[in-house]
C-alpha cells in the first residue's frame, strides 16, 4: 500500500493519509459529475428546445465548462476552498493563497478531504462549480447572446458560487459555523443556480410565442429522446455527485449511493402516479398528439429529477413523493422505511 503520511496544513493539524481506495473512487466520481454536464446536461437541455438552437445551447454549456475550469484554477478554488490558515480566510471568501493553484503539491491534502490528494479535491469541486452555471443555461435558453452569457457566467462564478461554496462548506464560512448542513450541493449548487435562473428569466424576458397557443411551435421541444438520454446520463452521474460528496469510499458513500438510486426510482414513480392521476381528471386542450406526448414526457423527466436533488442533500429521497402531494399511502410508508435506513 503506497500510502503517504503527511502533515495537513490546517489549524486543526489533522493527521491526513492518502488512501488509494478513496482516491480511486473520488476520481471516478469526478468523471461522473463531469459526465452529468458534458453529455448529460447538453442532451437534456438541447432536446427540449427548438432545433434551431441545439448547437447554440450545446456550445454554451461546453464553453461554460472550459471557462469555469480555467477560472477555477486561476481564482475560484482559492476563493472558495483555500485551506484555512487561521488568519487570512474570511467568513465569506477564501484567500489568495491558492491562486493559480500555488502551493498545491502532489502530497498535499485538504482538511475537508483528508484522505485524497488536494489536486483531486480541487478537480472534484471543479466539476460542481461547472455544473452550477450550466444549469442556469436552461432558464434563458433560446434567446441570449453568447459573449454576454460568458461574461455573466464568469462573474456569477466568482461573485455568487465561490462565496456561497465557501460560506457553507469551508470551516471558516459563516453558514458552516452556523450549522447549516449541505451534503452534496443542494444549497450551493441548486438553490443558487435555480434562483439565478429565475432572475435571468425575469431580466431577459420571455421567449417569443411563450404562453401563446397559436405560436406553440416556437417553444416546442424538438426531440424528446435527447432529453430522455440526457436524463439517464444525469441519473448515472448523480452517483458521483452524491456518493462522491462523502470524499471517501466508506459507508457514507455507499449510503448516499443507495439513496441516490432509490430516490431516483421513487421520484419517477411518484411523478408517473401524479401524471396518471391528474391527466385522467383534467381534460386536455385540443392539440396535436405530438404536443401531448412531448409535454407529458418533458414534464415527467423534469419532475422525476426533483427527488434526485433532494437526495443530494444527503438522504431520504422519497419524501419528495409526499411533497408532490402524493398520494398513495404505500409510497409514503416506503419513504419512511427508506429513511429509517439512514
Amino acid at each position, binding site marked *: 500500500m503506497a500510502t503517504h503520511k503527511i502533515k495537513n496544513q490546517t489549524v486543526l493539524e489533522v493527521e491526513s493519509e492518502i488512501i488509494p481506495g478513496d482516491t480511486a473512487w473520488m476520481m471516478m466520481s469526478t468523471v461522473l459529475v463531469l459526465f452529468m454536464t458534458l453529455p448529460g446536461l447538453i442532451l437534456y437541455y438541447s432536446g427540449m428546445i427548438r432545433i434551431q438552437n441545439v448547437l*447554440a445551447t450545446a456550445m454554451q454549456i461546453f464553453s461554460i465548462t472550459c471557462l469555469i475550469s480555467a477560472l477555477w484554477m486561476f481564482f475560484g478554488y482559492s476563493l472558495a476552498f483555500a485551506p484555512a490558515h487561521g488568519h487570512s480566510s474570511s467568513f465569506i471568501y477564501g484567500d489568495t493563497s491558492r491562486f493559480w493553484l500555488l502551493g498545491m503539491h502532489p502530497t498535499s491534502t485538504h482538511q475537508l478531504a483528508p484522505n485524497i490528494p488536494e489536486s483531486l479535491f480541487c478537480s472534484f469541486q471543479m466539476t460542481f462549480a461547472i455544473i452550477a452555471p450550466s444549469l442556469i443555461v436552461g432558464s434563458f435558453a*433560446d434567446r441570449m447572446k453568447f459573449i454576454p452569457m460568458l461574461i455573466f457566467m464568469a462573474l456569477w462564478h466568482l461573485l455568487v458560487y465561490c462565496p456561497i461554496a465557501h460560506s457553507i462548506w469551508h470551516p471558516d464560512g459563516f453558514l458552516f459555523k452556523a450549522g447549516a448542513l449541505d451534503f452534496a450541493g443542494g444549497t450551493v449548487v*441548486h438553490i443558487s443556480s435555480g434562483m439565478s435562473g429565475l432572475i435571468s428569466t425575469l*431580466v431577459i424576458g420571455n421567449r417569443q410565442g411563450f404562453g401563446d397557443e397559436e405560436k406553440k411551435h416556437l417553444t416546442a421541444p424538438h426531440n424528446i429522446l435527447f432529453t430522455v438520454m440526457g436524463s439517464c446520463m444525469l441519473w448515472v452521474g448523480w452517483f458521483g455527485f452524491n456518493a462522491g460528496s462523502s470524499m471517501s469510499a466508506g459507508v457514507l458513500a455507499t449510503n448516499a449511493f443507495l439513496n441516490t438510486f432509490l430516490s431516483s426510482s421513487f421520484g419517477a414513480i411518484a411523478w408517473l402516479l401524479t401524471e396518471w392521476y391528474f391527466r385522467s381528471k383534467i381534460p386536455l386542450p385540443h392539440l396535436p398528439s405530438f404536443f401531448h406526448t412531448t409535454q407529458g414526457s418533458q414534464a415527467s423527466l423534469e419532475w422525476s429529477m426533483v427527488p434526485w436533488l433532494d437526495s443530494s442533500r444527503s438522504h431520504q429521497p422519497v419524501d419528495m413523493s409526499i411533497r408532490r402531494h402524493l398520494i398513495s399511502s404505500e409510497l409514503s410508508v416506503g419513504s419512511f422505511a427508506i429513511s429509517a435506513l439512514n
Partner: protein
Amino acid sequence: LKYRLRIDDALDAFGVHAVGGIVGGILTGFFSNEHINGADGVFYAPLDVGLTQVGKQIYGIVVVTLWACIVSLIILLGLKYSIGLRVKPEVEMNGLDKKFFREEIAAVHFHHPSEAPGSHLLQTSQSLLGEIAMNILHFPHFQLPSHTPLTQSLPEPHSVPTSPPPSDNGAHPI
C-alpha cells in the same frame, strides 16, 4: 404555474433546482442524523434541538437565496444596459445556431426526406441502415409549419439534382 405567472423559465431551472433544493434543504433539518451528518434533525433528536436544526437550514437557504438573487440581478442588469443580453427578434426566430456559429443541425431545412443531402444514396442503397435513416429523417418533428415566418426566412433547401422523385410507397425490404 410558470404559465400562470407568465415567467418563461424555458427549461425549468428554477422549478427543478431551486424548488428541489429548498425542499431538500429544509427536509435535511428533519432527517439529518448525528452519526451521518454531524447534527440531529427533528426525527432523531428532542424536538427543540431538531427544530433548531431546521431553523439553521432555513437560515442558510434564505441567505443563499438572497445572495444569489441580488448578485445575479446586479450582474445581469449591468450587462443588459451595457452590451445587451438578448438577441434580435429575427435572430431569435431563426435560431441561434446560424447567427453565432454559422452551423446548423442539417435537418432544419428538410421539408421532405428527399431534400436531404445524400438522400438519393439512401434511397438507392435500399439497405436496412438506409431504411432506418429514411425513417428518422421523415420524423414529423422536422417538418416546420409552413405558414410561419420561420420557414420563409430559411434559405432554399439543398437541391439534389440527381435524386429520384420521392417514393412514399416504396418497397420496404425489412
